[in-house]
């Protein structure tokens, strides 16, 4: 199976304000599930890397805002939007997600962002928080986007899917996608734009359930 060498990976960040301190009874179930969920992420197809704190196990010790001890931070790198989507919404992680309001306050502003990075790059907290700020300020764009408005990988080719590249013209794909007025239920632009060629015959992945 041949894949292109000019790889892009997808970085993602999300922040969340917990309802009480990490060592409180309110957060006990959340804390208890961290090892299992992190292990699940680590073995998920398309997982590349996740940021950990000084303890080296998970990211629960990271505080992006030093003045706010209740603001948690999570950052990871994936091979594709689909790989991240499958872990987020099509795995045991969904069990944790469905209990999010027990542990996290609803944030009115954008609290997550995705962006493309060259394979091998490791985002920093500052870089990730800048992407959240971009999303808050400008809305979704190639520099910071969400599941609802995904952007294809840069360089006019290379939306990774299942470890292979589906080649397409990125600009054209985005234009076609926007013009079609499709909702967030639609698959990625690269699967909507007619006839992308794929180097390994990977089928477009149907959207989640």
């Amino acid at each position, binding site marked *: 199976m041949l894949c292109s060498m000019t790889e892009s990976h997808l970085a993602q960040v999300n922040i969340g304000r917990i309802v009480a301190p990490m060592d409180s009874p309110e957060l006990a179930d959340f804390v208890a599930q961290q090892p299992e969920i992190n292990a699940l992420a680590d073995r998920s197809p398309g997982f590349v890397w996740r940021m950990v704190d000084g303890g080296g196990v998970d990211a629960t010790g990271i505080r992006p805002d030093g003045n706010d001890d209740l603001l948690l931070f999570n950052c990871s790198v994936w091979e594709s939007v689909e790989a991240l989507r499958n872990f*987020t*919404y*099509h*795995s*045991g992680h*969904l*069990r944790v*997600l*469905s*209990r*999010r*309001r*027990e542990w996290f*306050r*609803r944030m009115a502003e954008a609290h997550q962002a995705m962006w493309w990075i060259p394979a091998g790059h490791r985002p920093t907290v500052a870089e990730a928080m800048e992407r959240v700020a971009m999303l808050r300020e400008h809305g979704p764009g190639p520099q910071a986007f969400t599941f609802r408005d995904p952007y294809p990988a840069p360089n006019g080719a290379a939306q990774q899917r299942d470890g292979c590249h589906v080649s397409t013209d990125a600009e054209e794909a985005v234009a076609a996608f926007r013009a079609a007025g499709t*909702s*967030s*239920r639609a698959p990625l632009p690269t699967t909507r734009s007619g006839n992308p060629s794929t180097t390994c015959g990977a089928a477009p992945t*149907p*959207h*989640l*359930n």
Partner: protein
Amino acid sequence: MTDEDSAFDVLGVLSDPVRRRLYRYVAAAPKEVGRDAAAEAARVSRSLAAFHLDKLVEAGLLAVSFRRLSGRTGPGAGRPAKLYRRAEGEHAVSVPPRSYEAAGRLLAEVLENAGLDRELQAAARAAGAAQPDARADDVVAALRARGYEPFWDGGTLRLRNCPFHALAAEFPALICGMNLALVEGLAPEQWSPAMDPCPGGCCVALSKNKND
């Protein structure tokens, strides 16, 4: 032709009872289905099944792939079998026109923005528990009646269909959490529903408690 006309055309194909039986069998099957199995399930001849299955494919209700069921490849492996599965896409028509889906989307958006997951889950759990049919411990029939298309995967009861598919795609955490609570309410006590997403199907799977 309007969207409504196309929906009538597609659904009209199902007015034939044999086709309906074939469609239901293929749509609920956990895997792709060959002609022989479909014919047997619909209690018709293989050639009649083939004719109607292909009508369902023409209408876009079923999709086709070709695969050798023997697992052999190369010369002498024989012709690949034609296999049928439920097609992607949804078809609905309402007379007179009703827009419950649009209302559902608006309501979901408001709940999402207000962070009302737990309130929705409580309502869903109560709604599931209020269904008398499931109390008789025929949880399989109760789930089937709600369109989940349950099937056994070893000792796990998986759900081939997500009745809230479009909303779940748009608001996964909110709607899948609602769905889990609904199934929890519906299932008698000896069952343990849990999030265990099935590719292309529902995010909930059920297992029976060990001590029952």
